[in-house]
């Protein structure tokens, strides 16, 4: 390893954020759990004991087997099976993959939309600013889940036939649209401060479009807050996706996310096959909790006022 | 002099942090007599405000008094239980903070705030307290005081608000007022009015004042004695006229030299090079030595305590009677 890299590593190891990380057991555990989830989601096709979507592997005689430690359990299905004989552990791994994909994609969508609108609102000002922020106010007074439901309902009505294949994108759009406001507010605030600084005026003289130079200077300044918002937002987005899927308006059952699995399992709750719904539920909560813990820690670590 | 009203002995204030303990105030000792005005000057971060906060028992955690003692009327108050200390605050020691805009609760009328302070400390009925509130407002120069008791802080200007704050500090007739930068946040034109008011009121009521400020002009006008603080220590103390006209410690010399009104008859303003050390990097020996124009070998290794220097006392080896 070359010396400069070592020095850089040493510096980041000694930085306040890293210090606070090393001294926060919750954050460490949360990070490990999160990395495990992301890893097993990305590599689901390789790490999962079965491929639950390969119909040739399914055998109805394996249906509704309890977890392996209960009487009647089968060690090749550690967490039991559902009514179609699919291995619960494998469906969870594949489901987490879809939940994470929707969550991260919709957060990226929100972030790009919100940052862009915030920059424009803050920089252009006037009636455009007033309009954007008014829309933000109104939207913020409605819960995200309702807006997502509405966008989803609209998309269903407008695209009745192709809905199945577009479900993923519709979901990302509806969750993404419901979450841009916080980014826009944060970025707008910083933009308003930076706007009147001299370098922005100077940029004009050099013929650089001020919006370009603003983006270059504003974005690094809002990186911290935006990162915190985004982290916690991923957790919210995953919950929203799970909720929509649970309500039956999310991803189609052929590509089940954790929410879909819980919805499917819910039907077996009363007949005693609790594992079909409980394990995906636990997986969802553990994943969201890990992300929330990371977000909480990040917020405290990046906020010097709260640091002692 | 009789027994001092307030006596601070060897006060040391520490902040434990994850990179070690910071000593913000160290070996600070001074007294204030009844009715006396002590000015405490120094740059921001010198430990003036912390000393004030320690006296009224409102040091914010993790800050703590690590050593020394504070006596009011000969009685130790630095380790009193919470409730006993609360009874002293406002009743025997009042306080005035820097920012009058932020010192008043925006959701309560000034009448309510005065009455609750008065009734907390004095056995008065609601009506008597209300009357006292109006009297106090009149005394601090608020026009149409009776009518304005129902008004909220945002309905007053900055100067008027600081008058209200002074009225609140005097509400229970304390023996001592700790005024922490009482004029810094105000317009220059109003600063003089507030200082004059504070001076008059304290003289009338026989109240002693610990006036914390970085403004030497205010001290010159108001204080009887002055203590100069640097990097958490007192470097010079003495009667105000002596310290201003014949400063002993090189830091005080520099401080006086940087004030236009005081050096009007001199040729030019003097500037002290460098800046005060950070708390985690206070140099050994005399903390001022890296900036001192008269530094010599001993300053680098040995820390000077306050020693007699003419009519004042200074923490500087230049005044050591017994050379090492």
């Amino acid at each position: 390893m070359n010396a400069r890299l070592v020095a850089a590593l040493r510096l980041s190891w000694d930085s306040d954020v890293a210090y606070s990380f090393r001294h926060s057991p919750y954050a460490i555990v949360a990070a490990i759990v999160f990395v495990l989830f992301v890893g097993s989601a990305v590599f689901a096709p390789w790490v999962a004991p079965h491929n639950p979507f390969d119909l040739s592997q399914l055998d109805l005689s394996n249906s509704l087997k309890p977890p392996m430690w209960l009487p009647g359990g089968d060690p090749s299905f550690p967490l039991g099976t559902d009514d179609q004989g699919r291995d619960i552990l494998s469906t969870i791994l594949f489901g987490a993959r879809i939940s994470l994909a929707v969550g991260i994609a919709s957060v990226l969508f929100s972030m790009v939309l919100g940052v862009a609108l915030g920059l424009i609102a803050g920089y252009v000002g006037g009636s455009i600013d007033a309009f954007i922020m008014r829309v933000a106010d109104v939207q913020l007074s409605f819960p995200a889940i309702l807006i997502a439901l509405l966008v989803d309902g609209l998309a269903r009505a407008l695209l009745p036939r192709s809905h199945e294949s577009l479900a993923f994108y519709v979901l990302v759009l509806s969750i993404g649209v419901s979450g841009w406001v916080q980014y826009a507010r944060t970025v707008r605030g910083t933009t308003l401060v930076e706007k009147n600084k001299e370098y922005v005026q100077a940029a004009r003289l050099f013929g650089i479009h001020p919006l370009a130079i603003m983006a270059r200077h504003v974005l690094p300044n809002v990186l911290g807050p935006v990162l915190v918002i985004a982290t916690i937002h991923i957790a919210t987005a995953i919950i929203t996706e799970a909720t929509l899927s649970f309500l039956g308006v999310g991803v189609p059952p052929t590509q089940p996310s954790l929410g879909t699995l819980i919805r499917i399992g819910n039907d077996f709750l009363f007949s005693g096959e609790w594992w079909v719904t409980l394990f995906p539920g636990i997986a969802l909560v553990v994943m969201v909790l890990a992300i929330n813990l990371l977000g909480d820690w990040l917020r405290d670590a990046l906020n010097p006022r709260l640091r002692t | 002099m009789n027994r001092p009203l307030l006596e601070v002995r060897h006060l040391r204030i520490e902040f434990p942090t994850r990179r070690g303990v910071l000593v913000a105030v160290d070996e600070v000792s001074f007294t204030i007599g009844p009715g006396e005005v002590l000015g405490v000057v120094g740059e921001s971060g010198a430990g003036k405000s912390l000393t004030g906060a320690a006296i009224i028992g409102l040091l914010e955690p993790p800050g703590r008094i690590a050593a020394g003692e504070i006596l009011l009327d000969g009685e130790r108050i630095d380790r009193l239980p919470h409730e006993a200390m609360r009874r002293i605050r406002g009743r025997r020691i009042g306080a005035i903070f820097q920012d009058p805009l932020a010192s008043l609760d925006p959701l309560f009328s000034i009448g309510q705030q005065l009455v609750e302070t008065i009734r907390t400390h004095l056995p008065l009925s609601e009506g008597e307290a209300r009357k006292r509130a109006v009297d106090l407002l009149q005394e601090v120069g608020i026009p149409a005081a009776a009518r304005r008791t129902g008004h909220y802080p945002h309905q007053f200007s900055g100067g008027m608000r600081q008058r209200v704050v002074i009225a609140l500090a005097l509400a229970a007739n304390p023996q001592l007022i700790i005024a922490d930068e009482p004029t810094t946040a105000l317009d220059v034109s109003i600063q003089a009015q507030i200082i004059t008011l504070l001076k008059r009121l304290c003289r009338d009521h026989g109240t002693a004042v610990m006036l914390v400020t970085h403004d030497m002009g205010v001290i010159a006008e108001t204080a009887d004695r002055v203590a100069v603080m640097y990097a958490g220590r007192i470097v010079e103390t003495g009667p105000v006229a002596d310290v201003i006209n014949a400063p002993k410690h090189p830091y005080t010399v520099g401080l006086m030299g940087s004030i236009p009104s005081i050096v009007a008859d001199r040729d030019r303003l003097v500037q002290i090079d460098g800046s005060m050390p950070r708390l985690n990097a206070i140099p050994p020996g005399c903390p001022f030595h890296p900036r001192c124009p008269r530094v010599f070998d001993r300053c680098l290794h040995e820390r000077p305590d306050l020693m007699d220097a003419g009519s004042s006392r200074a923490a500087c080896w230049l005044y050591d009677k017994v050379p090492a």
Partner: protein
Amino acid sequence: MTAFILRRVLQAIVVMLVVALVAFSLFQYVGDPVQLMLGQFATPEDRVRLTHELGLDQPFYVQFFHFVVNAIHGQFGVSLRIGKPVSVLLAQRIPATLELSICAALLALAVGIPAGVYAGLRPNSWLARTLLSLSLLGVSLPTFLIGILLILVFAVILGWLPAFGRGEVVHLGWWSTGLLSKTGLMSLILPTITLGLFQLTLIMRLVRSEMLEVLRTDYIKFARARGLRDRAINFGHALKNTLVPVITITGLQLGSIIAFSIITEQVFQWPGMGLLFIQAVSYVDIPVMAAYLCLIALVFVTINLIVDLLYYVVDPRLRADRPGGSGH
């Protein structure tokens, strides 16, 4: 005062009109209502006649005007799925949703505010730390999962409480209530906890952080310096100042309880408006969707208005008239 209220009412009306426009556009541009109502075997004459009867041949703004007038009278047409007037369907469902939402809101406020105040005043006590950790778990638990877990434990395993439905309801005029029968009350317990828990944790976290924020302010420090009693500082000055932001966000949260009841109603098959709406979304039952949208918007706008007025009562800085602000 009047000017302030008028301005807020005007804003509320604008928001309602925008929502009405969205709902109207749903009607107008999504699907073909004539086709939907006549089915596949209609003659072109039928089409023309119905188009005229429905007013669909009139200009856009006339149609929108009629839509708004009808909406004000509660008329949103006929459900495509059930074939009954939407107004009748909603009227049947409103009591169930409102009873559930109000119980959940009361639970959230009654537990959330005291817990938040406590955690703000004693941030380092073990109880506050425990509450905070639990609240993070609460925020991470999706509402529907709370419902499922409660059903699993209290209905399936223990068999103490019913798992779905409203139980026995008593009809008081057009209002049906579950509060007057034993099974009705039993049925209310699990849905109330499910719906209220998330809001409870949010309110607790909010009150705590606002309380910590206020306790850092200069006027609280000055109140301490004045020697006021802890009780007067904490519950007089700090709590009152905390209330200003708490009222706003709590108000908005209460609105979202009604929206979140969609999920709870689905889990417990609670016969409220949310269940009606989610079925409408699945079947693209536009009139029901539009009506629900307008109704929810009305609830939100009303809550916002009340919040603004409360704000005005609590915070003297908002009272625009300044009698004798002559101290300047």
